[in-house]
Every structure is written in C-alpha cells, then in structure tokens.
C-alpha cells in the first residue's frame, strides 16, 4: 500500500474516499488486533496502541476472537 495525497479532486470522490478509508481502517484493525491477541498482547496494550479504552477494544473484538478460539489474556493483564 502506498500513500500520496492528491492536491484536489471531485468532492464526490473525496466523500467516497472517506467511506472507503473507514472500511479499510476497520479491516486493518480486525486483522491487527487478532494477530496481536494471538501473539500474547494484552487488552490494555492493544487498547493503548490503538488509542482507545480497554472497554472499547474488548467490546469490539472479544466476541469474534473468542468464537475463533483465540486464547485471550485476562483483561487486567
């Protein structure tokens, strides 16, 4: 993935870009959080790395990772 910031563009394209970037960020977050938890990161570490609260990251990802059989460290870890 390479990033270059274009000087300008149609507003419709720039609005669509925001939706696409959000989708991309969500996908990158899903895979990165899963990899972190599979390799022994704790919830507080992942939360701090993302700049969100432990509760937020737990609520967003715990159910999916538990369903996938990922061994999760304790939330206080």
């Amino acid at each position: 993935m390479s990033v270059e910031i274009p000087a300008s563009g149609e507003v419709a394209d720039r609005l669509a870009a925001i939706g696409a970037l959000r989708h991309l960020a969500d996908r990158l977050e899903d895979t990165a959080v899963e990899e972190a938890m599979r390799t022994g990161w704790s919830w507080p570490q992942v939360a701090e790395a993302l700049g969100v609260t432990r509760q937020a990251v737990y609520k967003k990802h715990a159910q999916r990772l538990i369903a996938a059989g990922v061994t999760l460290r304790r939330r206080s870890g």
Partner: protein
Amino acid sequence: MSTVDHYLNHILTTAADEARTDGTTTIEAHHLLLAIARDGSPALTAAGLDHTTIRTALDHEFTTSLAAAGVHLAGALPLPTTPPTGSPQLGTTARTALERGLATARRKRDCTPAHLLLGILLTPVGTVPRALDLAGIDRTALTDAVRRETTDDH
C-alpha cells in the same frame, strides 16, 4: 407473512452473509444488491450484471475511492481469519434503499422484489451508483427496466 415479507427476509439473510464476508455485521445497500443478484433478477441479468460482476464493480469502486485519497492498494485487502460475530443490523444506506423501494409501491402488500431493487437503484449517490457507473452500466436504462417490472406485476 406475505410473499414480499418472505422475499425480504430471504434477501436480508443473504445480505447479512454478504456483509460478514465483507468483515462487518452492518448490512449496507450494496449488500442488498449483492443478495438480490445472488437470488437472481431478470433486469440485472439483462443488464449483464450478476453476483460476480457486481462484486467486481464494488471492489473497483473501493480501490478507486481509496485512490481519491491517495491510497493505492497493492494486492488484496487483508481478510480477517474470523468473520465478525453478533447480530446483523441494517445500516443507513440499506434502510434508506428499503424505504425508497417500499415508497414506490402503492401499498406494502403491492411491494415485489422489483420494488426492492428499484429502491436500491434510486440511490442517487454513494457506493452503489458509483460502482455501477464505473462498470459502465446505464443506470437510467436499468432503473427504467426495473420500474417496468414493478408495473408489469400489477
């Protein structure tokens, strides 16, 4: 439960699967379109659109929109190894498309699969019209064809 309710339930279930494949539990308008295409639609088929071509058009729209922000994907988007869990929910674009579709029928019980597709095609801006435009689809002609389907049924 009426026929259209059964169809709507079926489409929403399929659309939820499409959303999960996309890594989300939120059903958006383009997931409804994919679901309708998977189920089969004469108007979409006549326009040369099936599930695969629509998926390709949506992927193209995604990379084109990212490029507008200067982001170029080299290779495929990383796929989560686990699909999201949790109940599917209707996103804003899907809700609006369904409302538009229902509004094209005189009464809810007059609503047919074609009305639901029409609601999606009447979306003026956003992912679906951008994807169809980029794929070179004549949206006006397609919308007219679907509108004719809605009147043919009655």
